[in-house]
């Protein structure tokens, strides 16, 4: 197992360098440069000012030199400096990370738990009205654009009913402390986390349902029934555990995206996370911030892929043997 993990880590490092290089060229291929965007924000710029900015950003150097410098930094875990935000990129990302993780992990847990449960429930009542209801709702969640769902959620629960705050991470100027602050943040979290979780909830539900139904027709389940095992034990030990494999794969994929944040949700709900940081950096061509976010999220995707593979081996002994 250790050898397996070590091999995978070496591979991951090579892939990461390749990803950074590819991203570097992709970003620089987009039209526009950060100096011009920043100068534009200053209202009026002259050539000296633009030159100053380009020199500061290192944009006056040849592209390959810029790449070399960047990779050199990455190897020393230095993600560079954001001239627009006047801060080291690593600080910017780690400032935003807690908010993003709180949002995406809550959404992850909500979607995984509720989605899987609903899937199991639906598969146990195939063809009945409760199955139809669950499947229809799931389809609705699956098909609704996130942006629209987010706006509707704000409109209904915040503007009309006034039950929940419509945006932000906590009440600005509320100065809550201790438990009050936790409650305040939790209230702010409900709408964005639920909205963000809707799509994956539907996917988990459909996947679990289909997988449960498929597994329950397999020979080993028939054998278990023939042995006279209780249906609830068959469902739990034999069907559910085997049906989980595709769900774990999907959860691994979703988990990899946790750190990348959720651009739309964070924008609509003014959630101060990494997704928004990335979106704003893109608009401003803040290359170092973009590359930094891509680097951290790529690293996370690789990490969670590794964890998924390890989990596979735990869930399914056949993979371990092979």
């Amino acid at each position, binding site marked *: 197992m250790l050898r397996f993990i070590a091999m995978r880590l070496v591979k991951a490092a090579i892939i990461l360098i390749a990803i950074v290089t590819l991203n570097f060229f992709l970003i620089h291929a987009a039209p526009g440069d950060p100096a011009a965007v920043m100068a534009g924000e200053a209202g009026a710029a002259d050539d000296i000012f633009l030159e100053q900015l380009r020199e500061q950003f290192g944009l006056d150097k040849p592209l390959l030199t810029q790449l070399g410098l960047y990779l050199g930094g990455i190897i020393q875990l230095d993600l560079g400096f954001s001239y627009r935000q006047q801060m080291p990129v690593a600080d910017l990302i780690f400032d935003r990370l807690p908010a993003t993780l709180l949002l995406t992990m809550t959404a992850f847990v909500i979607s995984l738990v509720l989605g899987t449960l609903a899937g199991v429930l639906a598969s146990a009542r195939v063809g009945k009205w409760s199955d139809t209801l669950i499947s229809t709702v799931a389809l609705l969640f699956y098909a609704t654009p996130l942006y629209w769902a987010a706006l509707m959620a704000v409109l209904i629960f915040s503007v009309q009913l006034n039950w929940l705050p419509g*945006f932000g991470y906590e009440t600005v100027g509320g100065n809550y402390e201790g438990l009050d602050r936790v409650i305040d943040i939790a209230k702010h979290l409900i709408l964005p986390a639920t909205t963000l979780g809707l799509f994956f909830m539907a996917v988990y539900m459909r996947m679990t349902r289909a997988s449960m139904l498929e597994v329950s027709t397999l020979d080993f389940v028939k054998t278990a029934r023939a042995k006279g095992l209780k249906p609830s034990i068959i469902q739990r030990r034999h069907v559910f555990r085997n049906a989980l494999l595709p769900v774990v794969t999907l959860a691994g994929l979703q988990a990899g995206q946790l750190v990348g944040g959720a651009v739309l949700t964070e924008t609509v709900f003014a959630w101060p996370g990494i997704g928004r940081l990335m979106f704003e950096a893109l608009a401003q061509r803040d290359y170092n911030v973009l590359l930094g976010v891509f680097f951290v999220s790529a690293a996370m995707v690789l990490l969670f892929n590794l964890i998924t593979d390890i989990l596979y081996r735990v869930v399914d002994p056949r993979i371990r043997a092979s």
Partner: protein
Amino acid sequence: MLKKLSLLAATFIVATGTALADPVSGGRANAVIQPEPPSLMLGLVQNGPTQMVAGNLYESLLRYGPDLEPLPQLAKSWEISEDGLTYTFHLYDNVKWHDGKPFSAEDVVFSADVFLRETHPRLRQSLKYVESITAPDANTVVFKLNEPFGPFIGIFEVGTMPMIPKHIYEGTDYKANPANNTPIGTGPFKFVEWTKGSHILLTKNEDYYIDGLPYLDEIYWHIIPDAASRSVAFETGVVDILPGGSVENFDVPRLTAMENTCVTDKGWEFIGPLSWMWLNNREGPTADKRFRQAVMYAMDREFAKDALWNGLGKVAQSPVSSSTRFFSDDVSQYPYDPDKARALLEEMGYDGTPVRLLPLPYGETWQRWAEAIKQNLEEVGVKVEIVATDVAGWNQKISDWDYDLAFTYLYQYGDPALGVARTYVSSNIAKGSPWNNVEGYENAKVDELFAKAATAVSKEERQALYTEVQQILTDDVPVAWLLELGFPTIYRCNVKDLVTTAIGVNDGFRDAYIEK
């Protein structure tokens, strides 16, 4: 006594045209800031959001009333010599920086002559006319010019010449100075905290040099990236002030219909945002003057004003905004007249070559405006393709002259020499910047008139020169002028004296108070 008198004078001027009830101290202002500023150090970064927040932290020597007449700020009085070469400012003598150190004329010399000369491109243009800046005593500053510069008295606004503390910045690497994260100014509010992506908090400066000011205890600037969410923030009472341009125009009628909600398009007189379409004068149909005039006649600008801007702003009559000095309406006029447009196109023999139109990527209003113009132009037989870009891509295309028609708006800064000439003089034609003479218009007479007018001393002479240049430009139509933009500031009606100067909300909340 002197201080009280000046205070009285200043208060009187500020109160003109605003509420006359007794201001009350206390309370918190909740305002929106969009987008999140990159930094609050106004000496280093001069973009809109930075100035909006930092206009509370930093100050300059003067402020400007809605008619652009100078008002006291750090300078309580000033004199200009008859030859227009010497400007002498007398400063308030009890001013302190937010860290408690005294502010003096030396700070003014350092800010204007050392710091901003290096970091402020717009001010640098005006400082070319300055021979020396000296401080004969702690409360007097003298600017000596090498030749008269008409708009000089207009450059002492906080966004153009913010005062920077010499004791903190002298001899340091300005951009890396840690004080940039905790800005120190002389303004009515002090910096407290900035939670990135969430909010910026400012608190009252208890040691402010004008007794009784400011009235508010604190200001929260809320950072909300989505325009629809900003509207919701106002509707749900989270914020009480939406500075101009915070929400999409189509949300404005809904918000202003709410109870206790006021709206004003004042506070932009100094900046004077004027919108137009760049017309590429170098090639394609737009190189023909008759085509450009046809574009002017084809556009229904009144419709755009009413439908897209809720009736706010004005149809532009000239390259100079009507709130800017030396505006003249004695120029060629272009009312909506599709028949005239068709006739001009026929006369030039327009062959139906399609033109590319770049909307400004600043939100829905601009997108819709581009569609309205497209419709206007197609009605007179011009084929239009709308090209979509983001801000960075738009900058690039304009800088590379890769367009036929392209929306933009630029600031005038109160005087044609500061904000108008740069768009039309031929010395300003250079690839690589989207704010110079991007259209490629060349006219030696126009160059000469702008140069003369900038250095003429008497107002009458300047007016005559600028009127002539406006007449030439409106005949040649180097660009297609659209509207003098009216950005609505929306606020609860019990917030009083929010907008009192020509710079509006950008000038800070010094005089604002909340009526109980």
